[in-house]
């Protein structure tokens, strides 16, 4: 075997221009063979996933839908340092920082917090670099398997703090399990 004929996929075929035999030239037999091939496909398992009713199974390690974490006392961890926005290759994250007031000590862990924190889900590629960049362990991609819901307006894909911050009941559950330990 010469070097030109070796293929990595093992599927390389040598093209030949050999003359067709009589059987091939009258076509009828070859057409019947083709019909047999297509007929076999009629009974093959269909690969289509009927989406709204069936959902493609996701990998066990799939990470989607970000969450802004709270600490064990239920305070938001994010300090609006902007490292996640900086690291984001899709430039999906934007935020606005604000200073914590004295009476808000139970809401935010540090003196600075994110007043607005938005992720544009149309841009996000779920790479997880925000998670890696965060020095406060405030943002995580969750295993919730929640796919971004479809919508008719672009605005509906920009997720604000109302959708991103960890829900309170979840935070309460976390604090309780921490105190038991």
């Amino acid at each position, binding site marked *: 075997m010469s070097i030109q004929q070796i293929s990595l996929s093992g599927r390389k075929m040598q093209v030949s221009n050999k003359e067709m035999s009589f059987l091939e030239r009258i076509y009828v037999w070859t*057409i019947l063979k*083709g019909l047999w*091939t*297509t007929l076999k*496909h*009629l009974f*093959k*398992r*269909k690969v289509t996933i*009927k989406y709204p009713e069936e959902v493609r199974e996701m990998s066990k390690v799939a990470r989607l839908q970000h969450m802004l974490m709270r600490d064990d006392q239920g305070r938001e961890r994010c300090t609006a340092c902007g490292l996640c926005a900086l690291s984001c290759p899709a430039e999906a994250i934007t935020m606005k920082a604000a200073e914590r007031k004295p009476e808000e000590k139970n809401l935010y862990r540090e003196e600075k917090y994110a007043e607005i924190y938005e992720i544009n889900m149309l841009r996000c590629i779920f790479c997880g670099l925000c998670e890696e960049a965060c020095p406060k362990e405030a943002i995580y991609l969750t295993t919730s398997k929640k796919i971004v819901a479809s919508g008719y307006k672009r605005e509906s894909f920009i997720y604000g703090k109302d959708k991103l911050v960890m829900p309170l009941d979840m935070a309460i559950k976390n604090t309780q399990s921490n105190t038991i330990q």
Partner: protein
Amino acid sequence: MDSVFIIEKSIIIVAVFALTMLMAMYSTWAERKVAAFLQDRVGPNRAGWGGLLQPLADGAKLFTKEEFFPNTPNKFLFILGPAIAMSTALITSAVIPWGDQIEVFGRKVALQATDIDVSILYIFGVLSIGVYGIMIGAWASNNKYSLMSAVRASSQMISYEVAMGLAMISILMMSGSLSLKDITVMQANDGWNIFYQPLAFLIFLICSFAETNRTPFDLAECESELIGGYHTEYSSMKMGFYLFAEYANMFISSTILAVVFLGGYHFPGMAWVNENWGINIGALLGFLTLFAKICFFIFFYMWVRWTIPRFRYDQLMHLGWKILIPLAVINIIITGIVMVLFN
């Protein structure tokens, strides 16, 4: 002519018309379903169970679409095109024998709109008018692609009609009659024509693909080259008529194939059923048999569509003039010799 006769014929005509329309409608659904299944997809499945309401949805869509007129000098011809295509597709079914006689209130009723003794000539004549629908519509479209398509369609029709007619002649030599009813009866007595005339069957089958403008001979539509060909400029129900006419034609040519070569409504043991269960049940079973044969041919049309790619124009002409016509002539000669030797 008594009034009962007129009522009887009107009922048959309306029934045949409804059947043709229904079959054409559901052929569009079947086409998409078969195409999908042959490509490992599932096809339309949103409108109704398994997409069964899809043809209605498509029809509603076509009816409500904007009626677009191109900048054409002759609007009358533009409308006439789809009208001719549709009406010729529908009037062919008049001479098809849908079943043997049935007995209603002691009166024998033949399940056929009319049994004229030149049925086959009539069918060939109407089929040739069918191409005028394409030609006139495409000409009136005032569009280069449509015109190209019209030229292709008409030359294709003319060349394949010759081979089709010649293939039919060998059948006529055996039956000695042009009436489809006689041909069916002859096949019921002596066996189906496909066993005696396989070559004629093959030629006729290939030609009917060309006559109905189906792949591999769909040069007239030819999406990739002519953007839809003769119906490029058509929209809404005029476009729907062209598409509908194609499926109605497919149904009719399947019927002709079934009647001429597969024994029409004849099924093995028909005489026994007629004797023991009565002729009404025999006719019903006969009709169902014919229907099954037609459905097979319609499926075959779709099956071939997803198997063979489109012919090139010169290949088409080569096949028609240099292969099919000589073969049909040879077939006639062989049939003649065999008939002389064995009769």
